């Protein structure tokens, strides 16, 4: 194993080296740093050209320039972007954070939703729902990312902000949304005519009630999840988690999940004090999330039984869900303050940049974290949706075909034949195995998302790596371009190695040989 990894890493380093050389030559040919001077009408044009040649060292052979760049690169210096005379290392640092936020949010959402929808689509193969999802994924696949992005920016954001000014849904809109969601649930769950009707009416009614509730409590302008809602939603999470992971028959597991919800509710008030009085940052939040996971798992251990590990897993997931709800509640409580802030002035969904300038500086120390979080969220929302749609489509396709492949295997028939419940067959034997090929696609897809972020960042004006790359390409600055290329190439090489390792780790049929 170690030999395999070191061999692959060595190979990757070699590929990186050669690719950097080729890309340096290529970029050198494609950029034209003298273009603006050649068209200039300045009287000292000759002098300016000579100066620039001197500045950029253009009389030196490009191969020698590459090795100079490589030498600097090995000392950790990416050089200077000559037009702005800004250090590339500084630029890269802030740009990477911005891009990572965007890409990770989009990737997580796309994987989660895409896999879920794809699996359901596979389970209900050749039904209306399946055809609907297939068509939808084709459509999303064919949408140009930049077109969607511009549309979201110029239409979606505008409309939503207008809606928030006077948030009132008409009865007709509520009826329409409820009917649409009812139909989706009906098609997704399937069954005989009576089941379908019950599902349609049930889902439609619940949706309509929720919308009426949101309307009546003025939720759109002052959103909150109070303890009652936490109890309801938390119980939902508990039931759903138990249903999927162990089945509702497993009483210890169900008990663990519900005691996790109870614990979360009991801690709701103390948490309010903690979150209010302690100056928050992401480290503390991560710590709290880990505490939630650990206490959920601990509850499962306390419920005991021979299969306490399953209960612990269920408890951990439920506890995390409840903790996330409490966190969301806290974030939402700052929404009113955010809306009223003069730099926002009631139009929260942003279309440009990755933060509102001068927002965080102008508020009290205690509110900084929460308002900053909301601000990042409102800026991330539209780019994430734009970036997510395409990989959502491909994950749906992959998850569907891989699940179908698995369901046709003999071991699924064996599992059914020995009398396991359908849940166990699907979740244990089917779902887990269908994730194996997916796990190898994820790293590569995330790298592709990095490429896709170029377009999204461009449209939404996020100062990320993609925008740095495009801007430098237009400005004919080779140093930032090379920095960008090295980072993406490094990521791609690592992603390939990780994909191989994941495959070997998950599938015992694959042997890693050096």
């Amino acid at each position, binding site marked *: 194993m170690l030999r395999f990894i070191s061999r692959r890493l060595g190979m990757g380093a070699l*590929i990186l080296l050669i690719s950097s050389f080729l*890309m340096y030559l290529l970029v050198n040919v*494609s950029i034209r740093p003298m273009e603006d001077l050649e068209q200039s009408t300045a009287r000292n044009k000759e002098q300016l050209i000579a100066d620039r040649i001197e500045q950029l060292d253009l009389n030196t052979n490009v191969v020698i320039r590459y090795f100079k760049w490589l030498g600097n690169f090995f000392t950790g210096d990416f050089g200077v972007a000559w037009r702005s005379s800004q250090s590339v290392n500084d630029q890269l640092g802030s740009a990477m954070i911005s891009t990572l936020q965007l890409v990770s949010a989009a990737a997580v959402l796309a994987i989660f939703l895409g896999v879920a929808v794809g699996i359901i689509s596979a389970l209900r193969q*050749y039904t209306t729902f399946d055809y609907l999802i297939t068509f939808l994924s084709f459509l999303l696949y064919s949408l140009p*990312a930049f077109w969607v992005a511009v549309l979201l920016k*110029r239409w979606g954001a505008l409309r939503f902000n207008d809606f928030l000014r006077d948030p009132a849904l008409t009865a007709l809109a509520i009826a329409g949304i409820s009917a649409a969601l009812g139909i989706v649930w009906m098609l997704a769950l399937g069954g005989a005519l009576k089941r379908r009707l019950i599902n349609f009416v049930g889902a439609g009614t619940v949706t309509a009630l929720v919308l009426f509730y949101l309307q009546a409590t003025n939720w759109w302008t002052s959103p909150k999840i109070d303890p009652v809602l936490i109890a309801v939603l938390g119980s939902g999470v508990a039931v759903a988690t138990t249903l999927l992971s162990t089945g509702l028959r497993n009483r210890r597991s169900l008990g663990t999940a519900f005691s996790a919800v109870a614990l979360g509710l009991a801690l709701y008030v103390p948490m309010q004090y903690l979150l209010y009085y302690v100056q928050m940052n992401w480290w503390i939040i991560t710590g709290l999330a880990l505490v939630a996971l650990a206490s959920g798992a601990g509850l499962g251990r306390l419920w005991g039984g021979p299969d306490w590990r399953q209960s612990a897993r269920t408890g951990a997931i439920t506890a995390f869900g409840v903790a996330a709800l409490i966190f969301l509640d806290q974030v939402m409580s700052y929404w009113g303050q955010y809306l009223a802030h003069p730099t926002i002035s009631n139009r929260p969904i942003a279309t440009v940049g990755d933060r509102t300038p001068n927002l965080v500086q102008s508020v009290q120390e205690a509110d900084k974290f929460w308002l900053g979080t909301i601000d990042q969220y409102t800026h991330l929302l539209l780019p994430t949706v734009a970036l997510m749609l395409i990989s959502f489509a491909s994950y749906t396709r992959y998850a569907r075909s891989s699940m179908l492949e698995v369901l046709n295997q003999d071991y699924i028939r064996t599992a059914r034949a020995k009398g396991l419940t359908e849940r166990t067959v699907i979740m244990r034997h089917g779902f887990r195995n269908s994730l194996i090929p997916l796990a190898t696609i994820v790293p590569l897809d995330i790298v592709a998302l990095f490429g896709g972020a170029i377009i999204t960042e*461009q449209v939404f004006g996020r100062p990320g790596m993609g925008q740095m790359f495009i801007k430098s*390409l237009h400005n004919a600055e080779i140093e930032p371009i090379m920095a960008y*290329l090295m980072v*993406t190439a490094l990521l791609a090489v690592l992603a390939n190695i990780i994909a191989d390792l994941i495959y070997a780790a998950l599938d015992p049929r694959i042997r890693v040989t050096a």
Partner: protein
Amino acid sequence: MTIPPPDTNHPAGPVEAGAPADLLAAESQAEELKMRDVEGLSQGQIVRRRFFRHRGAVVAMIVLGAVILLAFTSVGFGNWTGWWKHTPLQTGNVTGTGAQPTLSLPTWLGGDGFVWGDHPFGRDESGRDVFARVMKGTQTSLIVMFIVGIVSTVIGVIVGALAGYFGGRLDRFLMRVTDLVITIPVLVLGAVLGALAAGKNSAFLLAIFLGLASWTTLARLVRGDFLTLREREFVDAARVAGASSRRIIFKHMLPNSIGVIIVNQTLLMSTAILLETALSFVGLGITYPNISLGQLINQYQEAFATRPWLFWWPGLFIVVIALCVNFIGDGLRDAFDPRQRRIPSQRALRRAERKAAARAESAAAADSTVGASGKETT
């Protein structure tokens, strides 16, 4: 083989029959149908028949054909000016609502009568006809799409075939080269190459460069296919008969992996058109005065609030082309996949069952002297 999941709420048919017997009958019937389906047909005929059974793919092919025809005949190509009265670059004056699209929907679609008008897609801020511009842009994007497909197919097939057939050192070398190209995302590589092509401002050059960036997937697939084909008996037979390597590769092995190639390249072409439009959108592909759909959207995105039609039409054409190509690709994949079977839906199965039952019943009624049928329904 797929066995339909056991249907618990199986409708009790008029004839007494256990579910397993039903299943078995349905399966053997399907098997028989499948055999009858392909009897005495060549592979090409089977593929063609299966393709034409894919309704989405056939519709997509017709729509794509119509788009191609419209784009090339309306504004013409090369020296030919086409039948449309405006040219993409000719400007006019825009006063009042003169720039509004004159296209209106037929009354049964909620419009006020179908009118094609003088400027069906409206005009832009300098009075240029948007229909002519969109058609010209569609032409460019289509040309780029096809050239990318051809270039990447040629390179991908050659690299993959050589690597898979000869193996050994050549294989290792070619695969390392492929890895090298893969390290850079296609969009990024395309951007750098696009910047190079933008200097020359030629759609052909851009397309060739994009083809040079996007052959890697095909090369890997073809190599994988060739690795298995190489071990097959017919290749040994050809070699024993004295065929040259070139002949074995192109005459014996390549036709066997044509399915993989066609399917993959069709899907690649749909990403190629998105890639070209995306690059043109960020100003690294086709640039003014040449026209591409992505460049049109880039040029007009600021006018979204005042003249939305400038933005809608080019985007619509990109979506239509990409969607059609994707559907054709899907149809081809189904057609070439030997494991693919048409599985009748539950509803179709039940309908067939009912029909069979009705036939059995009428036969029983006619055969009244025996009167052995268990249940009589009136």
